[in-house]
């Protein structure tokens, strides 16, 4: 897993509630069998005026000048400021892959959809939940001041504004630890392989119907 520690970067404000993962990365791009290369298609339907296709060179596509990420002042942004229920809908991990590939390392919102929230951590993106009043104030400040930057420090669990004001944020200690260390979840879990085996042995006694041999049964049905 990718590591995250501390970052000072430009903030891009996406002033919409319920931004869904279909909007973050439209379905035609889900056909890739890779984890990389989704950045150019992030928010494709909002960002461009034509309909994007996977593998397409985006450098000559007509861009929507109204869309926030196309405005010169937000170029190079690594922090996305969003509204409630960000990342709702489909479980596609292509959404955090696209956000990360574009360059976002932090997303700040009043609330996130759970699957997206979870997927973000797995890809080195830090999703931060702040109360609505604080988020609203950030929107005002970002829009008022060109080149507005925030410093996010995961170790200290703080966000520092340009005027020096510090906002504290909460983060699950386990997730914080994994993100700071860049730990591989699978490797961590496999440390408990003996416990998983012991659980399985117990369950095979208690609930043997959970351990049916699918292939054998399928073959039997094939013959009928």
């Amino acid at each position, binding site marked *: 897993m990718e590591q995250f520690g501390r970052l000072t970067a430009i903030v891009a404000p996406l002033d919409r509630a319920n931004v*869904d993962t279909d909007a973050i990365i439209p379905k035609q791009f889900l056909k890739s*069998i890779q984890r990389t290369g989704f950045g150019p298609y992030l928010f494709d339907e909002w960002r461009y005026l034509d*309909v994007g296709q996977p593998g397409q060179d985006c450098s000559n596509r007509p861009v929507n000048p109204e869309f926030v990420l196309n405005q010169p002042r937000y170029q190079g942004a690594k922090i996305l400021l969003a*509204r409630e229920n960000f990342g*709702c809908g489909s*479980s596609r991990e292509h959404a955090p892959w696209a956000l990360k590939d574009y360059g976002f390392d932090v997303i700040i919102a009043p609330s996130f959809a759970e*699957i997206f929230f979870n997927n973000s951590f797995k890809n080195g993106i830090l999703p931060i939940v702040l109360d609505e009043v604080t988020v609203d104030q950030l929107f005002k400040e970002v829009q008022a001041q060109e080149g507005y930057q925030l410093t996010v420090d995961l170790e200290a669990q703080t966000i520092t504004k340009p005027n020096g004001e510090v906002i504290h944020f909460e983060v699950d200690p*386990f997730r914080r630890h994994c993100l700071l260390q860049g730990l591989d979840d699978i490797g961590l879990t496999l440390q408990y392989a003996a*416990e998983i085996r012991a659980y399985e042995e117990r369950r095979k006694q208690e609930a043997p119907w959970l351990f049916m041999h699918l292939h054998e049964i*399928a073959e039997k049905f094939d013959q009928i």
Partner: protein
Amino acid sequence: MAGKTLYDKLWGEHVVRQDEDGTALIYIDRHLLHEVTSPQAFEGLRLAGRKPWRVDANLCTPDHNVPTTEVEGGPENIEDPISRIQVLTLDKNAQEFGILEFPMGDPRQGIVHVVGPEEGATLPGMTVVCGDSHTSTHGALGCLAHGIGTSEVEHVLATQCLIQKKMKNMLIKVDGQLQPGVGPKDVILYIIGQIGTAGGTGYAIEFGGQVFRDMSIEGRMTVCNMAIEAGARAGMVAVDDKTIDYVKGRPFAPTGELWDRAVEHWKTLHSDPDADFDVVLEFDGSQIEPQVTWGTSPEMVIPITGKVPNPDYETDPVREAGMRRALEYMGLEAETPATEIPVDYVFIGSCTNSRIEDLRAAAEIVKGRKVSDRVEQALVVPGSGLVKMQAEKEGLDKIFKEAGFQWRNPGCSMCLAMNADRLPPKKHCASTSNRNFEGRQGAGGRTHLVSPQMAAAAAIAGHFVDVREFL
């Protein structure tokens, strides 16, 4: 001490270990896979030199990309080269890792959430996961079932576990009796309209009360399927005799003495009478009317007797802006009666509404009638090869075809338009699917979520119409 909820019981049975801060390893009994969210997970296994922890826990089938028109000669001949690669990659991975697959052309192939329960691969009391948010569907059988991302797909393949924290408990209780013409889809759309698309975030939702007790297993699947549209990763319904009857005799269901033992256990899978829920919401089922969504989020829903809302009356500025954007995207004026919204396309299918009962309900409305001339395309896409065969046995295909519907092969199809079935820009679609997000069914397309009966009636009328007039 208070009793346990169904979710408490399912969680408790699957904890392998738990840390003091509540972070737990949860054992996964069934892992379903499809071609879109699995390739990167298999690639991850290969790169790390890992093998699946328990091959028999996994079952896969291609669904999102498969064409719904006949493909001669199998997946090698899928026209879209990128779809073809994805389907072939699943076939290859299934073979390489020894995972059971129902490939294209197998009558058991279909939408993964239709296939699991249909085959008895989903059994009551299981933990079921899949790289697809609509995995909540399987909760209808008294399972703890939810969607996961691709990193977690790889994690489950490699360890048979997930790292999780326990969710909170929510009970949504709907009592009373549904009116004729009102079905499971209307119930769940109504609930989402009441609690919003983030109303269930952080909770496992149990659906209880007379309405769900009276509901068929297929209907409960429709309801649990859309728990995620209310923000909840998992929705579930207690096991009862209907659940057990549904499971009996399915290919992967236990038999003989094992069956008896399983049933004995399954009968305990309900919330205790004194169980403690964090939130209890109650609704009166008899007040629910047929529903139709007008906007670009499932919570933007109105009864068919209602009107598109007016953002002028919305006090929250973020919500107001969302409503205005939705009206513009949908090409609708505020206060338009629902029955005056035109219909250009009709899609009956998806993991929400493509089971045999859904097709029967739609066919009942369609029988002896014709699709309106205004409708450019009306599709019926059964959820699996077996659903299709059953429907054909009952003559439902003829009813649809005679009315002017196209009768297709199983797959996800126009629910998310990853295959060739797409909603063109600015066209209004009466769709039995689950998401009306911008561009979901095709860039610029305008989706209205409805029940199969309502979609059938809209196809006939050429605009949305109260299906109760057709009964």
